[in-house]
């Protein structure tokens, strides 16, 4: 934001720029720089000493240091991996496996936390007594119970109580749920399947275009276009149409019980389910509070003005209140998302193979290289949170109040 400079500031600036004749060390600007620089160097020296000292001590103990362990075979297996992995692969690959698992659980967690947060946050203002009470109870319960306890609850109390493999709950011999996870069929694309994939992209672009057009059109003519249902139609209709035209170029791989386990299809392990559930329900409660605060920050006059224009209740919410509330909500979302990523390290408690668990946990233990593994992991969490921050800041400036 620009603001007019006061005369004092202008004077100060010209003084700093060297118009005054005082000695360099009396110049407040140089002095400030000097202190900053000294502080920086001090800090750098501090960290340098800590690290070199510790490494020196480790070497004195006869412990191995350095990053050469990354190319050694890990020799142990991980429960879940988005890329192929077996015990002969390296620690470097374990690092990637853990990283992807962390990203996966974070993305799932953030998505559902946002959904829960907005549903329960808005429900707080419902005219229905029951809905309102449910929303309040949700927030009060899940915000006040330690997250670790919730992780244990979902994992050891809820998901462990599911039936065994042979007694699985099933739906149409295609979906199975048991104590070892949730299994569902997988589509495997064949020859012409790219046409269908392409049509999905086209449909997504089409929807964006449609939204844009509908808005313009409404501004011009005042007519409303049923964007939602048309979008739904495009999103599902287009790929379906092409799938039919190309003669459904997919095979469906169903999960089948083979020996001890279901194989084939896609498996969602209970560790992932429990962790995503706990993270999204917990963080959702905080987001619900943020949403509530955001909505309450919108002056009541806005609601009344919207009503007097004849807007229906739900449109008042979605067109007038929530967009304005976003200015308050988005910065809060940023920190909730960041906490969620950091909280995902509770994975170790139930054995979900996230980065922290497989790297700072097992790899550190097997190699003894604490400094190296912790350093690498810290950097990853730091970068992940920087990315969230960056994206949310972009989003924030797009919802910020635009004065015309």
């Amino acid at each position, binding site marked *: 934001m620009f603001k007019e400079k006061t005369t004092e500031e202008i004077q100060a600036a010209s003084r700093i720029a060297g118009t005054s004749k005082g000695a360099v060390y009396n110049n407040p600007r140089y002095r400030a720089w000097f202190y900053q620089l000294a502080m920086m160097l001090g*800090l750098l020296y501090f960290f340098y000493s800590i690290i070199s000292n*510790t490494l020196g001590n480790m070497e004195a103990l006869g412990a191995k240091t350095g990053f050469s362990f990354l190319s050694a075979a890990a020799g*142990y297996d991980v429960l879940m991996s988005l890329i192929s992995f077996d015990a002969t692969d390296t620690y470097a690959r374990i690092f990637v496996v853990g990283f992807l698992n962390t990203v996966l659980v974070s993305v799932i967690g953030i998505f559902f936390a946002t959904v829960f947060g907005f549903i329960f946050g808005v429900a707080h203002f419902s005219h229905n007594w029951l809905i309102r009470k449910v929303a309040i109870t949700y927030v009060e319960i899940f915000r006040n119970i330690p997250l670790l306890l919730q992780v244990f609850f979902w994992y050891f109390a809820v998901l462990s109580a599911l039936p065994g493999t042979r007694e699985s709950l099933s739906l149409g011999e295609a979906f199975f749920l048991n104590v*070892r996870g949730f299994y569902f069929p997988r589509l495997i694309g064949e020859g012409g399947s790219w046409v269908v994939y392409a049509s999905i992209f086209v449909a997504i672009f089409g929807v964006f275009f449609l939204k844009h057009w509908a808005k313009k059109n409404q501004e011009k003519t005042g007519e409303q276009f049923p964007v939602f249902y048309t979008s739904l139609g495009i999103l599902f209709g287009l790929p379906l149409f092409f799938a039919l035209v190309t003669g459904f170029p997919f095979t469906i791989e169903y999960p089948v019980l*083979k020996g001890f386990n279901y194989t084939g299809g896609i498996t969602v392990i209970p560790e992932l389910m429990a962790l995503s559930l706990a993270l999204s329900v917990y963080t959702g409660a905080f987001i619900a509070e943020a949403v509530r605060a955001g909505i309450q920050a919108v002056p009541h006059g806005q609601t009344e003005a919207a009503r007097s224009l004849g807007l229906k209740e739900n449109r008042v919410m979605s067109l007038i209140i929530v967009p304005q509330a976003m200015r308050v909500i988005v910065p809060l979302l940023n920190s909730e998302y960041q906490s969620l990523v950091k909280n995902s390290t509770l994975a170790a*408690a139930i054995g979900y193979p996230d980065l922290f668990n497989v790297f700072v*946990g097992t790899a550190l*233990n097997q190699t003894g290289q604490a400094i190296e593994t912790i350093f690498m992991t810290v950097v990853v969490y730091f970068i992940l949170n920087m990315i969230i921050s960056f994206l949310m800041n972009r989003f924030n400036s797009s919802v910020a109040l635009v004065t015309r």
Partner: protein
Amino acid sequence: MKKISSLVVGGLALVALGAQAGTLEDVKKRGVLSCGVSTGLAGFSQKDEKGNWSGLDVDVCRGVAAAVLGDASKVQYKPLTAKERFEALRSGEIDVLSRNTTWTHTRDTSLGLNFAGTIYYDGAGFMVRKAIGVKSATELDNANACIQAGTSTELAIADYFRENNMSYKAVTFDTSDQTRIGFESGRCDFLVSDQSQLYALRIGLNNPDGAVVLPEVISKEPLGPVVRQGDDEWFNIVKWVVNASIEGEFQGVTSANVDKLKKDGNPAQLRFLGTEGKLGENLGLSADWAYQVIKQVGNYAESFERNVGQDSPLKISRGLNAQWNKGGILYSPAMR
């Protein structure tokens, strides 16, 4: 600025504490031995309702305390998970790690640690639920395994399944309790661990009769106490306390007859118990160090039977862990 420089100095001082020799002096000065044990494993290290620790691993701690401080009860126990144990030792939080830890080449050579002997020759094995009707590990293809994270077991099972061209899913947990619950809830078909620990875990199940331990032993797991590398004096003490317990059995010295033998035993016994010679002095300990170990903790046989053998719920037979002249491989170097 002043604050910052003092912060720097403080930080450096803290880090510089890392490497240290002189564990013996530290322990003597402190008057109590800090010993790392498991979080609770029947027969090896286990706490009763009154807060007293017992077990084969605990007896190593008690033996060292008896030899160094003259009192086997002067031990402070630190329960550690498999993942935490080596860092706890390296950072100086504990003086000895005695937590069913397998002596492996990698651990001995790259962690900055030294293994002070073997107190139990073990091997990894499998426990399955009876209901699945498996008689041999070779029938476990495509099954799920419950494993404790940060153990040598994780490596042993990967080898075994690869060697036999079978696949499995490794479900790992941080503590042995969680591992057991995972097994009981049916998340896994079998639990892998050192055989001795399988027996210990089995008696802790809600329904011990519903589980069986399979006959296969898939790896070598010699378990023993560990110390920091670079403190040879301390390394020697722990090593010879382990040997004293084994030698005690070999020479027929028990906690019951040790007082008598200290006076009128044969030359080897008199030397062992410090009546003659200067074995204790060479270790930097009092002459009666081994006497204290046997008197207060008992010899290996006593310790074994009391904790994991016939006088315990585990009822493990001596097997490999018998003296070399009784069909086992226990052998203490010469006590002279």
